[in-house]
């Protein structure tokens, strides 16, 4: 599995290098954005979670390292842990096409997928990610987020994430066509520019169908509600 990952990553980097060498003098930019870096306390085990992007590139092409994780602090294990290397290329004024590789290494199983997706800003200011994770155990994930300005620094960010397995992947807790839905609302305050914005919020997860059955079979709940405290980072 690791060998396969390395091969895909090497291919992605080669592609990146090839694309970058075409472009000329324009300087590279880099950045780090953590939408979520938080502690969740609620009905189930407490969870430390993150969701961040680190990127490097130019207008025409960016390489993004996206990392998402949920760490159960009681059992000291990763309920989910996913790292992706994604190439993002503009295809319209507001949208990028995404191609990359995803590696999931939570406690209990490993998965490698190719990623094909769209990332961008939809009309009415919705930040959209739509990704198809491709392997013999494919699934689809859609994320949308909206920044509601209460003031220019106090921002309420509702978000929704829906993951739909296309086939059964019992070890990964994914039952075919059984969606897992996450709904959140985070109230943040831009304390230092937009670099450090602490927030409080709620996070609700619910699984449906076969995915819910798998969750219950593990002894978990099909749904859980958390209060969250954390910070958004951008630098």
């Amino acid at each position, binding site marked *: 599995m690791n060998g396969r990952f390395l091969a895909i990553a090497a291919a992605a980097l080669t592609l990146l290098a090839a694309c970058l060498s075409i472009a000329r003098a324009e300087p590279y930019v880099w950045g780090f954005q953590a939408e979520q870096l938080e502690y969740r306390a609620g009905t189930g085990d407490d969870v430390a979670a993150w969701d961040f992007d680190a990127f490097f590139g130019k207008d025409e092409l960016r390489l993004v390292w996206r990392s998402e994780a949920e760490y159960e602090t009681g059992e000291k294990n990763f309920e989910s842990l996913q790292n992706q290397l994604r190439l993002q290329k*503009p295809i319209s004024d507001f949208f990028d096409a995404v191609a990359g590789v995803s590696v999931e290494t939570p406690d209990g199983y490993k998965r490698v997928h190719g990623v094909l997706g769209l990332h961008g800003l939809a009309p009415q200011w919705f930040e959209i990610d739509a990704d198809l994770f491709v392997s013999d155990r494919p699934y689809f994930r859609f994320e949308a987020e909206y920044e509601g*300005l209460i003031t220019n620094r106090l921002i309420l960010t509702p978000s929704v994430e829906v993951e739909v397995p296309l086939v059964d992947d019992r070890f990964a807790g994914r039952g075919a066509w059984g969606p897992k839905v996450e709904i959140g609302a985070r109230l943040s305050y831009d304390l230092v520019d937009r670099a450090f914005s602490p927030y409080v919020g709620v996070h609700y997860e619910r699984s449906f169908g076969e995915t819910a059955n798998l969750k219950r079979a593990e002894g978990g709940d099909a749904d859980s509600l958390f209060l969250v405290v954390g910070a958004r980072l951008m630098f």
Partner: protein
Amino acid sequence: MKSFGLMPAGLLCLGALLAPVTAVQSGEYNLTVDRVQVDTGSFTRSGIGYNGATPGPVLRFEEGEEVTINVTNNLSESTSVHWHGIILPTDQDGVPGISYPGIAPGETFTYRFPIRQSGTYWFHSHTGFQEPDGAYGAIVITPKKREPFRYDRDYVVQLTDAHPHSGDRILRNLKMSADYYNRKQRTLFDFLDDVASKGLDRTLADRAAWGEMRMMPTDIEDLQGFTPLINGKAVSQNWTGLFTPGERVRLRFINSSAMTYFDIRIPGLKLTVVQADGNNVQPVTVDEFRIAVAETFDVIVRPTEDRAYTIFAESMGRTGFARGTLATREGEEADVPELRPAPLLTMADMGMAHEGMDHGSMPGMTHSMPDGTTMKGMDQGSMPGMTHSMPDGTTMKGMDHSAHGGMAMDKPDPFYAPGSGLSPTAAEPGGKFLSYSDLKAQSPLYAERPAGREIELRLTGNMERYIWSINGIKYEDAEPIRLQYGERVRFKFVNETMMTHPMHLHGMWSILDNGNGRWNPIKHVVSVTPGTTVYMETEVDAPGAWAFHCHLSYHADTGMFRKVIVEGGPPEKAAALTGVSGG
């Protein structure tokens, strides 16, 4: 060798009596490029300056002089000095990659060029973000002949927009999130206010129209959070110019900001504009004027009372202001006005050619026919004043027009789109606000003749990605614009973005077509407001390679930039071309 120290410009009072100089002089000047501390009162940061300070010194030249300027780079990075608005040989223009390779760390580069003009100009680094970081100074050139106006004192009033972040960091933040620095965005409270004043339907329609385009009506200043300065001094540090009541005081306004336009007034005084971009114009008396980035305006004021007057410079987006004082003694102050409310862009500022704009999907929009009649379903009677005609004759309603209620509807400035939210008005009720249309050359430099051809330059960009371009192409991907020595070209600027762009052509004058025919003024910066088309002509009389760009630092750097190559010309003039590396 002439020397100039760090003496503030204001202490040097040049009387008109000193003006006539006949002998050809040659002066030698020294500039060092140094790391300096910028202290705005509200923050301190490391920056770049000249001769140990930012702003750098005021270079005072005389028309007809042959200047030699030794620039020593004390930085650990490459630098350059561009003499903004000065007509000089191509290899003296100071643009790395176009005029010369730049000045390496520790090196001294010697500029030599004749001064063939007079007036107020400035100089700045053309390397990276050294200019926003503080690398600028003023140039004052005394004319050979007596000037067609009188004054007893003169002061340089150099406006800048010092920012706590370095230029590199600002660009990175803008690329990461184009609205990073926009803290004037409309909030829930603005929404509730609008619902209360305009009703829910119209407020929703307005929000939906902007949301459909993913544009913000508050997007007037890309870069907020700066501290406006006058001659390096913040509001609390209060730059002061002294006068004796009854004297005529010439104020040489220079906007050396990276990104900020200013609306300038001196409550209690009329401003007589006598020069624009260093060139004499027929005097026009106004209450207020807007200065684009990189422009200069010389105004004469005559304070008669024995009291202080505030020089008040509000940023166009009203996110900050600079103030200085004209006083009869040090320490004297006058009232400082409140910032006026921030303007909001309207659909007129979007232009109708904007890419991605889909009329059919814009709620609340209606169209009128080219002859001015409206289509069925549009009820003008019930919404008085709520429709505006667009450049192409279409109108719309449901948009937010409240922010420009004070707009002079009777005599709109033709250099703004009809219904533009940016259209300026004087703070003084009924006061006169300077328009480009008011500028008439005092004595035209060039004979009037038709241009041989027209070159269209669409000013384009992608706000969300923070990419700026000309004709949709960034500098790095663009071919140079080729001009022929001796021709006269007509440039057509079509602003398809919602930002205002101060376009600056190096090496040759920009003859602004403001409808005054042979009295069209010559400038070095032509500001093009959103949704408008502006023409300028250029007598191509300077062989070589020149830069042509938007003078907003972060627009120029991200691609709204072109190289201009003037082909042909006298061999002795063109000789300087050889050895110049391409951009």
